[in-house]
């Protein structure tokens, strides 16, 4: 493998029902950082059926080039035709880096593609940098420059590992949604469009989709929620959780709770965060009336942004909160809901 032949940062532009997923823009945003360090460009891989008109949106968020693979076989996501599309792009265009979202699609597609092109990928990364491998020079071992350093939590978030892929290309990672920043949208920006079709020949691996069933329920698994409004004993009663539900509704979030709340019978067990409940890592975690026992912290401290509201200023929750508010949740939460409602109405 002639590694120097591999150039450019490529991102898989996930779309579902011909609507681009937010992760596509987040990957372009991060890809631009990496491309700048490497003096190269960001190319979006857009695969689907009748998706060509989505290319402009990828350009508006910063893609320099868009490779469009348009084929009826790509209508709904299936592992094989998508893996064939992306693996063919890799073989044809030889990217240095390929980023895929760590979504229910990307975590299926990424490994299948990596195995096909003989590289490995690093799962569910929360940080990506360009740097040296080994990080510090070791006598007798060549130190490689301009490597993709992929950082991810492991062991339930108890360790952080930084991983490199020095001798194989492309360097591949799946990236956790909601962590990387998308760029500000530049209306009218244009990307170079490359139409490409590797040809699709259905075989046994082209599984048949008998039915697509979209979720009709609004109960989101708290592990998948991007915004969690979590309440503890301080909320006071099952009825008072209404305050939290209203706040969650305004933000498109989901209500969760601490163990004390489940023990009191105010909320069911599947909403419990913590060591004996679920481990969550949403983008925003509101800890409302939660004191923050160590068992609770273990289940939520990986959250990107933690906002705690508690009347006890010595509560341990403040030790992990990015933003701690000492005060009465019964006054602050309804006022916050009203304020956000007004704020979002003006958008």
């Amino acid at each position, binding site marked *: 493998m002639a590694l120097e032949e591999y150039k450019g940062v490529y991102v898989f532009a996930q779309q*579902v029902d011909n609507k681009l997923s937010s992760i596509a823009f987040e990957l372009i945003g991060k890809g631009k950082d990496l491309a700048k360090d490497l003096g190269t460009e960001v190319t979006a891989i857009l695969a689907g059926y009748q998706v060509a008109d989505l290319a402009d949106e990828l350009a508006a968020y910063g893609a320099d080039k868009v490779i469009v693979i348009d084929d009826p076989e790509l209508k709904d996501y299936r*592992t*094989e035709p998508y*893996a064939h599309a992306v693996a063919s792009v890799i073989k044809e265009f030889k990217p240095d880096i390929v980023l895929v979202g760590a*979504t*229910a699609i990307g*975590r*299926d597609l990424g*490994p*299948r593609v990596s*195995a096909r092109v*003989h590289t*490995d990928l*690093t799962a569910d990364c929360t940080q990506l940098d360009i740097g040296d491998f080994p*990080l510090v020079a070791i006598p007798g071992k060549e130190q490689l420059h301009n490597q993709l*350093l992929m950082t991810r*939590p*492991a*062991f*339930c978030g*108890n*360790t*952080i*590992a*930084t*991983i*490199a*892929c*020095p001798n*194989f290309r492309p360097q591949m990672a799946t990236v956790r949604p909601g962590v990387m920043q998308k760029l500000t949208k530049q209306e009218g920006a244009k990307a170079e469009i490359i139409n490409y079709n590797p040809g699709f020949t259905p075989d*046994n*691996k082209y*599984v048949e*989709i*008998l*039915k*697509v*069933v*979209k*979720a009709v329920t609004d109960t989101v698994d708290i592990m998948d929620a991007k915004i969690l409004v979590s309440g503890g004993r301080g909320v006071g009663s099952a009825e008072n959780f209404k305050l939290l539900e209203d706040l969650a509704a305004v*933000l498109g979030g989901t209500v969760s709770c601490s163990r004390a709340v489940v023990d009191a019978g105010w909320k069911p067990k599947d909403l419990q965060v913590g060591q004996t409940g679920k481990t969550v890592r949403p983008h*925003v975690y509101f800890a409302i009336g939660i004191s923050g026992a160590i068992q609770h912290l273990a289940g939520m*401290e990986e959250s990107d*942004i933690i*906002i705690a509201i508690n009347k006890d*200023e010595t509560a341990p929750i403040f030790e*992990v909160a*990015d*933003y*701690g*508010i*000492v*005060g009465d949740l019964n*006054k*602050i939460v309804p*006022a*916050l809901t009203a*304020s*956000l409602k007004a*704020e979002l109405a003006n958008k």
Partner: protein
Amino acid sequence: MKIIVCIKQVPDTKGGVKFNPDGTLNRAAMLTIMNPDDKAGLEAALRLKDQYGAEVTVITMGLPKAEEVLREALAMGADKGILVTDRVLGGADTWATSSTLAGAIRNLDYDLIITGRQAIDGDTAQVGPQISEHLNIPVISYAQKIEIDGDSVIVERQYDDRYHVVKAKMPCLITALAELNAPRYMTPGGIFDAFKADITVWGRANLVDVDDSNLGLKGSPTQIAKASDKVRKGTGEKVNLDADASVEYIVGKLKEKHVI
């Protein structure tokens, strides 16, 4: 029908994670369990066995101690256990792990391979799909329901906001979610039999069609540059304001962080 279930012995993180002085995981000091998603996969296989009749073979790659998890699977109702263990297989990333397991599976007849979606120690969800690629068979990840229809499987495949009902011809690989079912308990008779059962042990020599350059640490494309204990987030800002000022403060932060 022949079903292979890939399982992994993992540290029980519920009891807390322990580290060696050099920062690596102290596996010896931690209790181990069968990985929860794998256990759901095994349960799914055992239900297919109950319903349609099947021979269920469990396979694991790991240290000799991983035999324990095979015996647990036998006690639940699996028919055969295979331990793949060899010094040269150590330090494998997901590419090398999937190459190893595919090399072992090539010795076996199978209609269905079931793996857990992901292991709780690595959380990668990569080994299942990678095995399917090495074996050139279809994969259906994130299965929430599995049925057999003649020479095909019909699977409910979960996505973020929907599920697909997918049909694939066997042989096929399925990755199972822990939510798929509630795994059965071992039976006293099962435990007794499992304790006496023979476990097949395979090493490097038993792997079929896999080159040394794809095995173990040497065969791993990805390498660890650095591993460290998680640095606990330091205390952030703390304010003590009246309700209106508190609201203004929170809204300001949500804007600053592009949440709204």
